[in-house]
């Protein structure tokens, strides 16, 4: 009797009263499917991380990839961070991501705010100008000619400027700015605030969550930049992380043997990099996403749905 009264309220908050008891088979089936789905994502990442932290001997004993961790051996990370092509690539990607995200956020927030007040002079044609980019898109060849024509070949700006603004993110931000009550704008203007001050003091603090999501979208885009690097970056020391990953894992090339790059200290230029080092590179390309993700993740649904519904 007493056990019943303890359990019931909790159950009622989970399941509506009219819902019948879940069947055992159904519960089991759902559980299995969801576990499988989660495992399919988690297991590869797990194997990569564990292998990257294993010593050469453990890897040889396992015959390749390591599943069960036996030691904590960060030497692979020491190697990739102590100079050479991989360190360069990490630096390049970090710079591009930080600078690019900052530029994109500033430009997008300004434009989204500028368009967020209906009735502004010329706001309809300007909005149309932005929305048209969804329909008309530049071909690969003309883009290539324009970027190289501007002299941006082998310049990190070529990884930033062409993708600096996305109309989708602009629409998401604008929709959110428009949902802020107009009285707030009015009262600020009464107090003598200019547009820039309203933006930084009132609008931005109210829209931290959406701005964070948009920032994550931009940052991920810059960090993952691969195709623009194929097109515009030939120099070895300016390659971003994704290019190194491709050369390394998919093309099976060792950075030590690739032309101008510096030999990896402690390995010598002839020794091919071990599996642990390869896996450490993989981990490095995943980690930034893993770090920002938890902070932004809870805002996803909000940000994405505003964009989808009001766009």
């Amino acid at each position, binding site marked *: 009797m007493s056990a019943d009264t303890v359990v019931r309220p909790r159950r009622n908050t989970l399941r*509506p009263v*009219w*819902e019948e008891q879940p069947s055992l088979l159904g519960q089991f089936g*759902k559980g299995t499917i*969801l576990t499988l*789905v*989660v495992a399919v*994502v988690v297991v590869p990442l797990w194997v*990569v991380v564990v292998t990257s932290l294993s010593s050469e001997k453990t890897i040889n004993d396992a*015959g*390749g990839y390591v599943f069960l961790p036996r030691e904590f051996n960060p030497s692979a990370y020491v190697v990739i961070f102590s100079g050479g092509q991989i360190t360069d690539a990490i630096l390049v990607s970090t710079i591009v991501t930080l600078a690019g995200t900052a530029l994109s956020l500033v430009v*997008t927030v*300004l*434009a989204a*705010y*500028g*368009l967020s007040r209906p*009735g502004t*002079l010329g706001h309809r044609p*300007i909005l149309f*100008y*932005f929305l048209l*980019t969804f329909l008309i*898109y*530049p*071909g*690969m*060849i*003309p*883009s290539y*000619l*324009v*970027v190289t*024509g*501007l002299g941006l070949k082998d310049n990190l700006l070529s990884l930033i400027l*062409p993708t*600096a603004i996305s109309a989708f993110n*602009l629409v998401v931000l604008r929709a959110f700015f428009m949902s802020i009550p107009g009285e707030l704008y009015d009262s600020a203007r009464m107090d003598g605030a*200019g547009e*820039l001050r309203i933006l930084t003091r009132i609008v931005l603090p109210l829209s931290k969550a959406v701005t964070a999501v948009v920032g*994550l979208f931009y940052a*991920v885009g810059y960090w*993952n930049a*691969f*195709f623009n690097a*194929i*097109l515009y970056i030939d120099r070895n020391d300016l390659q971003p992380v*994704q290019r190194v990953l*491709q050369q390394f*894992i*998919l093309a099976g090339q060792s950075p030590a043997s690739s032309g101008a790059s510096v030999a990896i200290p402690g390995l010598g230029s002839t020794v091919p990099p071990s599996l642990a080092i390869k896996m450490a590179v*993989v981990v490095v*390309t*995943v980690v930034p*996403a893993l770090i920002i*993700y938890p902070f932004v993740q809870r805002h*996803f*649904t909000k940000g*994405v*749905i505003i964009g989808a519904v009001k766009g």
Partner: protein
Amino acid sequence: MSAPPVAAEPQVAVKKAKKKVKVVSRQQLSFGQRLRRDWPLLLMCFPAMALLLVFHYIPALGNIIAFQDYNPFVGDNPLEAFLYSEWIGFGNFEYLFKTSAFWDSVITTLSITAFQLVFYFPIPIALAVLLNSVLSPRIRSLVQSVVYLPHFFSWVLVVSLFQMMLGGAGLLAQTLRQAGYTPPEIMTNPDTFMFLITSQAIWKDAGWGMIVFLAALAAIDPSLYEAAAADGAGRWRRMWHITLPGLRSVIVLLLILRLGDALNVGFEQFVLQREMVGREAAEVVDTYVYYQGIAVQQWGVGAAAGLFKAAVGILLIVGANKLAHRFGEQGIYSKR
């Protein structure tokens, strides 16, 4: 009892009056006055507009070179080269339409789209319905965080992970070999390439694709379920008569978008694996444009292929939207 309406009425009146005053004053302002009032806002739009002009609209206009025998060496820069290059009308298109390699790439692209419509499209829907039926919020948010994650990985990373798990030296092959079996060729087999890229796409984006459906499911009124249950509808009938109709408009919208993107199956995924499985299986329109235009330097032909793709894309999206209207759905834009 009568107090609330009385209190509410003046408020409404004030609001209306306020709005009217605003609209009238705005209409009375002259162009110069409006400019003086709005110039900071216009200035704020300027950087974004300039970026799009240079890196979006000018290249879009640059598609004109599809009608030229573009030669980058007749001038000092692309603009001069454009001005001095010879106009050849539809020559590039004629060349393109006579080339079997181009049609092969179109057919590959379309069959990939068709394949993915059948085997990929329903998965986010099923996943969303399944997850929505899980009652514990903790498990739900845990699963969500995990399946969203791969969306933020680059294609290089996704293909690398597949290579490491399923490739010739990967985890699966390693395990099979230790158990005494010969591992199958998964990453390099052109015959099963379609399955491979679809499972990669599912791994990367099915979880993320679920987000829209989850939102639509959350918007369904729970009392509908309760009413149906009261009328004796079991679990499956409720799903069939309430859950799925609730998703209908979102499904149609996403189908349209997918159709409009029929020639857009993604580029990096194919560039990365073209070497591994060979050109026949992995040449899509985008990779054709890239290799014709930039690697072989037939700029005009590459641009023509890109323009063809864009034009077909617009036709498809407009057509699919018409179709949606015929089915009585809203589509992307309502017809009015």
